[in-house]
């Protein structure tokens, strides 16, 4: 199968993300990349746990003074929902339903943007309370871990948007299907990392 071929619903394969050698390589390579990303975040988590609540003086806020459940809960829900919408998008991609895929991807992007907005608000709130990147080791570790994740969200949004705009007029092909697929894999990965951040940073932070 050639990647450039014009496809129809009838000729569209069951696994368009793995139907050419290039696509297979991309699929596997991206999984391996996510393996490396896992180690990267694991390292950041370890650093955060080692430096949690490590502040130079008692006037600075600690984790239990800062985090509030409602805000982070809403953020978590936004991101989890965006993972589901991207699953729907890939479902339609596999069925060669380009319009529907674009619709669900659009929803994913909107939810992601909502999450980022909340994160920006949250960070500015913390800075206001004296919890800054430069004020303590705790601050440095917190903003690095959560900020790295936020950076991943932002990059994922740009990526998905670029793919959507670039392919808006030409529909699905075996050349761009794997691109959509790995972008959605990336999005799921970001979501999984957030579940760990929610647990380790926020829930465990609130109990002390």
């Amino acid at each position, binding site marked *: 199968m050639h990647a450039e071929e014009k496809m129809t619903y009838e000729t569209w394969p069951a696994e368009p993300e793995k139907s050419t050698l290039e696509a297979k390589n991309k699929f596997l390579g991206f999984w391996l990349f996510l393996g*490396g990303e896992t180690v990267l975040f694991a390292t950041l988590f370890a*650093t955060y746990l080692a430096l949690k609540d490590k502040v130079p003086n008692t006037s600075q806020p600690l984790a239990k003074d800062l985090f509030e459940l409602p805000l982070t809960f809403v953020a978590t829900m936004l991101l989890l929902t965006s993972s589901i919408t991207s699953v729907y998008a890939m479902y339609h991609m596999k069925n060669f339903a380009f319009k529907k895929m674009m619709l669900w991807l659009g929803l994913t992007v909107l939810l992601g943007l909502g999450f980022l907005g909340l994160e920006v608000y949250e960070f500015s709130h913390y800075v206001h309370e004296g919890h800054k*990147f*430069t004020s*303590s080791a705790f601050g440095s570790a917190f903003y690095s871990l959560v900020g790295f994740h936020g950076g991943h969200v932002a990059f994922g949004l740009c990526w998905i948007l670029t*793919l959507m705009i670039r392919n808006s007029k030409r529909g699905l092909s075996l050349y761009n299907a794997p691109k959509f697929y790995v972008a959605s894999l990336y999005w799921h990965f970001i979501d999984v990392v957030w579940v760990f951040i929610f647990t380790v940073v926020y829930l465990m932070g609130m109990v002390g």
Partner: protein
Amino acid sequence: MSTIAQKKGFGATVWDFLTTVDHKKIAILYLIAGGFFFLVGGLEAVFIRIQLAVPNNDFVSAGAFNEIITMHGTTMIFLAAMPLIFAFMNAVMPLQIGARDVAFPFVNALGFWLFFFGGIFLNLSWFLGGAPDAGWTSYASLALHSKGHGIDFYVLGLQISGIGTLIGGINFLVTIINMRAPGMTYMRMPLFTWTTFVASALILFAFPPLTVGLTLMMFDRLFGANFFDVTMGGNTVIWEHLFWIFGHPEVYILILPAFGIFSEIFSIFSRKRLFGYSSMVFATVLIGFLGFMVWAHHMFTTGLGPVANAIFAVATMAIGVPTGIKIFNWLFTMWGGSVKFTVPMYYAFGFIPSFVMGGVTGVMVATAAADYQYHDTYFVVAHFHYVIVGGVVLGILAGVHLWWPKMFGTMLSETLGKVTFWFFFIGFHLTFFIQHFLGLWGMPRRVFTYLPGQGFDTANMVSSIGAAFMSIGVLVMLYNIIMTSVKNVKVGNDPWEDGRTLEWSIPSPPPFYNFKQLPLVRGLDAYWIEKMDGKKGMTPAEPLGDIHMPNGSFIPFMIALGLFIAAFGAMYHVDKEAWALPVLIIGLLVTFGSMFVRSIKDDHGFHIHKEELQDEKGAKA
């Protein structure tokens, strides 16, 4: 295609290499760049040995000495050994598995340019206010207080080149998993391919901790963070952990491919199947696995406590078992074989006793209680030079001689090769053997001079003379390379006559598509099997058809260049230079803009048509 290549002018050749995505050309780029940095690192070593040749020497100042030892270690590990290993992985691995290229040719080129610009950035520190001076391990307690921008050069340069290595590792993994020729099962892969596979997996899991460590250091030094600043709640031991979680696997990333090279050599020149192939594979995987559980043996004196020290000591000694398996398998490969004493075989012979000595001192320093005595002395310096030079560098030199004909189509002189070997081998033992005793007598490492009359004088002089021998060996090799290139006597497919694996079944250097028809692999040592059956070449696994090839691209160069520019902006930003921020932004724009162009511009590659391939065949016959 091949006729066009011959007529190209100098400019066209340069442009060709700047835009190439061909794994064989990228291998040559890695070889040249890695070779260049090897000479730079070697020059730094010579300066160290001149300074230490006599007591109370003032050849270089104390500060300059710190910079030189830091840059010697950093350059040799990251900018010489790694890329030289990568050169062979690129040149040989795709050929050994019967592939037409790597899985991601574009990413392959990007990996090279990132490494290259990272290395150049790091070395520019010499001309821009001073090199890093906190040792190649750059412990945070030293690095945070280092004046000037040396450490920033280290952090940013290694970050850029590290990303290149990481994507290179992923690329090799996918290539080996997805692109093996028909019949090339995992347990028929040549040992060099196996070690490339395991080393790439190590890269995938070991480089992210380094990336994070370097990022934290960058945040601390350039953006006011406090990860390692104890007065702000930070903890400097975090850096030690992150560095060694990367650093220990790194030595296996280097030594495993060298093991692979020697496995090929022992088998080829004993004209015998590798003894205990399956146990060799098993040992390689086991070493890779254990390599992640021993990092704290570099931190026995940090004060992690007796339990941690005991666990890491035992885990470290356990690695001696799979390594021992390998040593015996190599010996048994030669046993009963008809051994041919070629230059690669000289290196292989020299490697075994040298590396075993490094292994024995390795078990000594792994003994946590005894390590309190060895730590930070010349004993440790002797130990790691025995494994790195006695293992990795001998492996690289052997690989250069073994695969030179495959990469360039010409044969290096055997006589000059043997001269190089003897100078280098004798020089190596002369330099480092005595350093074991210097360490036991109490000479600390990383000191810029010592007083006379402490019993260090003669030993240091001997060590420095050894360094001179090694330098002569390297110079002879350079002469050898130049003379071989000038004479330009072309060789055939199988210049050693005893080639066993697929790379020897195709022309030297191979055509840009490697295999006209993918070969059918019928067992381990695929080419040897066909030769023993009286055939001239491999049996094709497919009819002659169109070949799909990737287009060249200048974008990898631009992506790496952007980061190179951005790094200057990030670094001088701290000095409140007005131009720093714009430079940072411009650099990032170049990088992300190039990535954007890459992502929106379709690149389907091109096809070589069946008829062209047939013509070429006709022309040759």
